[in-house]
């Protein structure tokens, strides 16, 4: 059990996803001020408040109307984020969750690999919506390498725990790697070269999301 492998039959069920959202919501709440102050430096200082409002609403929505399968949970989270966050991150994160959820369909249990593929669909949705590529200093800068790491880890036959853990590590270092970049999307792009030297707030929040995911995977294993 503690050494679940990529090919493991033990799938991720709806409880796992509720746990992921719960952990994400807690992490966002805990890091709210840091996210907001990152946004104040190169944006408008609301990213932490925005996401905290959104994940608080998502948590409440999941409690009010408990979803029956993983895809439904993520679609519900995405829809709630879209309806409650606003700003750039609302539609973008909302789309990540909605598309990921839709890709999971109505399965009651999904494998790690299926989840990774679904996240790829979510990421594609965000890139289509926001038009950002890697290097534009956005959340995409975290999602792309983290997902790559996850896929690679799962393909290597590493443990599921290890694959998600490695993906979270990559996400965190990818977030820090946005520091020297000049923003080309979103509000920070208005600053031109003055956006250099600051971590992108959306990249920072994406790293929280990946870490929460890894923790849920780890927690499940225990």
């Amino acid at each position, binding site marked *: 059990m503690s050494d679940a492998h990529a090919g493991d039959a033990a799938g991720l069920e709806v409880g796992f996803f509720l746990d992921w959202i719960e952990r994400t919501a807690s992490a966002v709440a805990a890091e709210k001020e840091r996210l*907001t*102050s990152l946004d*104040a430096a*190169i*944006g*408008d*200082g*609301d990213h932490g*408040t*925005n996401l905290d*409002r959104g994940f608080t609403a998502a948590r409440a929505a999941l409690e009010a109307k408990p979803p029956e399968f993983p895809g439904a949970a993520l679609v519900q989270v995405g829809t709630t984020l*879209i*309806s*409650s*966050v*606003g*700003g*750039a*991150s*609302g*539609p*973008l994160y909302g789309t990540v969750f909605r598309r990921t959820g839709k890709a999971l369909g109505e399965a009651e249990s999904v494998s790690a690999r299926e989840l990774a593929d679904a996240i790829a669909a979510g990421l594609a949705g965000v890139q289509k*919506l*926001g038009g950002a590529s890697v290097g534009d200093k956005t959340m995409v800068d975290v999602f792309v390498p983290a997902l790559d790491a996850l896929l690679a880890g799962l393909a290597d036959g590493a443990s599921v725990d290890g694959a998600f853990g490695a993906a979270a590590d990559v996400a965190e270092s990818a977030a820090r790697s946005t520091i020297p970049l*000049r923003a*080309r*999307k*979103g*509000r920070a*792009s*208005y*600053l*031109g070269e*003055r956006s250099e030297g600051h971590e992108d707030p959306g990249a920072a929040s994406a790293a929280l999301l990946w870490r929460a995911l890894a923790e849920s995977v780890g927690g499940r294993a225990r």
Partner: protein
Amino acid sequence: MSSMKKLINSPESVVSDALAGLAAAHPGLTVDVERRIVRRAAHASTAGKVALVSGGGSGHEPLHAGFVGPGMLDAACAGEVFTSPVPDQMLAAAQAVDAGAGVLFLVKNYTGDVLNFQMAAELLEDEGIESRSVLINDDVAVEDSLYTAGRRGTGATLFAEKIAGALAERGADLAAVAGVAERVNATSRSFGIALGPCTTPAAGQPSFQLGEDEIEVGIGIHGEPGRRRAPMAPAAELAGLAVEAVCADLDFTGDAIALVNGMGASPLLELYVVYNEVQAALKSRGVSIVRNLVGNYVTSLDMPGFSVTLCRADADLVDLWDAPVNTPALRWGA
């Protein structure tokens, strides 16, 4: 400069509380405080009229809710402070004010506003209501290139709302109303300068720090720093900077409508000083202001500073500008 002390009950309730105040103050408006939608009071007859809907983050008052009323907007959606509203609001507002002739969304060009309005437009289409969206992107401080999110929408929003609102009132169809809004946007340019930061209720901290003799040049309306920092200078020089930036981007030779806009904390006395310098600088460039507004119209909370917006003024636009308007913040001929 900006203050941590604010006339609010809590950062969480500031938008709702202000909307409740707006509702109480203006019987001509119907305000859905919970959903944060402001529209003309029910009795206003708008059958068959193209409906104009705008909205955006709060903190820019009187934009947008202060421009709802006969001759201007049909509805405005208020987001959290400096945060775009959500698609549900825009959808509900559009459904409430659609009078069968379709809905024009006037959208300031920020990623958040663009994405949320885009989602709303898709949802509205599902409801069988036709809509058009016009993006306002007048701020020349931002390079309009592949390497940015494009120019921000600032002062020209007011121009588009007024002028498209007047044309809608005259019964023009959706294409024509959208067309004139696009024309206003295409022939308008803005540039802003801040003498200090602003403070959002949630952050409780100034949006940036400035030395006693520094200013931010090329600011937006969300407390973001400008393109560069410069030493403080007399009003004539600052007005010259703004006029130069605006006119370098578009030839305004001839007649223009001008907005000398306060960012929120600069006294009207000072805004008139700026207006004086702006009109003089324009005159020497062969630009003659035929209509103007001086005051706090598109603000950034308690930011001290100003912006200049010009719109090329042909006879049609001036005629639409002069048409009656009756909103909390802009009123004439009614």
